[in-house]
């Protein structure tokens, strides 16, 4: 059975959520939790402070057998860092509205400030239909969680800040190596995503020599949560090498 390593985004519940559960019907889907998310940093990871550290971590802890690589948002950034370092290790790459590459000028932020905005604002910007949002955890969201869950959400935010505070949600060194990613690549963006605007994902796809760009209508930053059936169908056919 083929295997898929899926690197999760910030603020998303752990495990095979949404379309990832559907993909697991005929793929071995691995959704590891990034160090610092869900559990405290340990002695090994205490000083990690960059996405390069996370990329190195996954490259050294996963098997050498070629597998499919995918990542969403923050996880998409990690996947990009892995793909430029070891493109031969992966059969294909799926990126869902990844952070990680800055394309605009210095006075124009590429991404919404997810480390400042309130959960209601993030949902408003991140969903085509904000009233239908689900499977997210943020400090104070959902409001009725016990204190221990909110503590975990704050700790996850701290882990994200540790890796992504400055430069904000990107690595200035990443763009110059994107031409090395020559494996089959699919970049997916939701038409209503205002956390990572679809035009950013489209421009990023243009910098990847073999990437195809797909924009899903009526969906935001989390298409695998908001339109799981369509996301599953598209990714499954891409992984099988079928024509679009």
């Amino acid at each position, binding site marked *: 059975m083929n295997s898929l390593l899926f690197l999760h985004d910030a603020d998303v519940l752990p495990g095979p959520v949404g379309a990832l559960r559907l993909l697991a019907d005929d793929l071995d889907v691995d959704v590891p939790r990034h160090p610092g998310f869900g559990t405290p940093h340990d002695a090994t990871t205490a000083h990690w402070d960059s996405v390069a550290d996370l990329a190195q971590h996954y490259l050294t802890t996963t098997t050498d057998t070629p597998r499919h690589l995918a990542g969403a948002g923050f996880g998409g950034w990690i996947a990009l860092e892995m793909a430029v370092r070891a493109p031969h290790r992966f059969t294909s790459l799926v990126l869902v509205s990844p952070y990680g590459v800055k394309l605009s000028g210095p006075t124009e932020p590429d991404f919404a400030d997810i*480390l400042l*905005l309130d959960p209601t604002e993030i949902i408003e910007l991140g969903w085509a239909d904000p009233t239908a949002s689900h499977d997210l955890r943020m400090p*104070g969201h959902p409001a009725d969680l016990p204190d221990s869950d*909110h*503590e975990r959400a*704050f700790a996850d935010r701290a882990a994200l*800040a540790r890796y992504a*505070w400055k430069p904000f949600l990107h690595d200035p060194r990443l763009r110059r190596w994107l031409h090395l990613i020559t494996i089959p690549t699919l970049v997916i963006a939701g038409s209503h995503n205002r956390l990572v605007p679809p035009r950013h994902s489209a421009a990023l796809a243009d910098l990847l020599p073999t990437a195809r760009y797909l924009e899903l209508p009526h969906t935001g930053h989390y298409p695998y949560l908001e339109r799981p059936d369509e996301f599953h169908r598209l990714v499954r056919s891409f992984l099988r090498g079928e024509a679009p």
Partner: protein
Amino acid sequence: MRLYHFTEMPYPFVPPEAEEAHRGLKYFMPNRYYDPVLGHQLYQRYLDEYELADELGFDLMVNEHHQSASTLQVSATLSAASVLHRTRRGRVLVLGTPLPHRESPVRVAEEIAYLDAVSGGRIDCGFVRGVQGETFPSNQNPVHNLDMFIEAHDLITQAWTRDDVFSWEGTHYHYRYVSVWPRPYQQPHPPIWISGTSTRLVEWTARHGYTLCNLLGTYEDTAASFRLYRRTATAAGHPEPGPDRFAYMALCHVAPTEQQARDIGRKLMYYLKPGRLRLGAASPPGYFPPASAVAALRGRLGAVRRMSYEDLIDAGILLIGTPDQVTAQIRRLYEHTGAGHLILMNHAGDMTSNEVRDHLTLFAREVMPAVTPLGTDWRDHDTTWRLDNDHTPVRAVLSSALS
């Protein structure tokens, strides 16, 4: 007891609808609301008031905040230079330089040494972590705030006290050649002050024997922080810390009648409006331990901001009344906490210069002589905060009122 005059130098001309639209006056306020001519006049007025306070016998405190209409002091060391130039007598307390938000600790060491040198040792040097929201103007990673604070402090104190060129290749700061000119006038270095309430920071301050300052906390929380300090200090082998190791900052206004004091003093509530910052700014990722962040979320932090004007006066966070009433409040503060330094925030918002000057003059004439002797002979007194008398268990304090 030493008494310090302090104003944050607010810019009180931002339209209320702009304050509403930008969730308060701080960090995210467009500077189109600042008028350069009005700003110049304000700076001169505030420095004139520092000059008067110095003549009346107060010591003086300056601070800094960033991108904020509630504080036009942009660098505590720059403000200290201005105040030193205008004054002759009082000590100038820099409280403080937010070390994690400054790019270069070596530059901080140079600036403090310069101030100490030109003033012949009139400087007290405060270091602070920087309030939570300052994380956004400085853009320094809040996750590393406390570690950067401690590393910057270690580098600065070495830069003041080593007499040769040295290297600093630390976690957050990197210099190959450090040798600060001038060396401080006060040897080995100016007195160091720290403000904060977190357990790790209070214990660290106590082990170093620095002066600990509580800003606008309840007396109970303040006493709890100072208790932790006293026990940590003695456990580390220091003698019992006296009142000169403890400072408290309160808002203050005295007038000839209670009614007058309360009418004008109400303007001091400017600094205690409920915070309207986003949670991400009030509690940036990693700035607080998760349990404190949840307390902030649940509204258990900054409880002072939800107290009424009358309750704040009763609690002594607002020192407001006739000279006799304020004298009694300050005695209560000393009896309760053992603070030997009192920083008086004598101005807020649109309080007029005459209101500030009348208050300073009356305070200096009637309150200052009555409270200055507090704490001078503390070893002869059997107060509740003395180590031998205080058996209350140590408990953690979440945070002071300011954010």
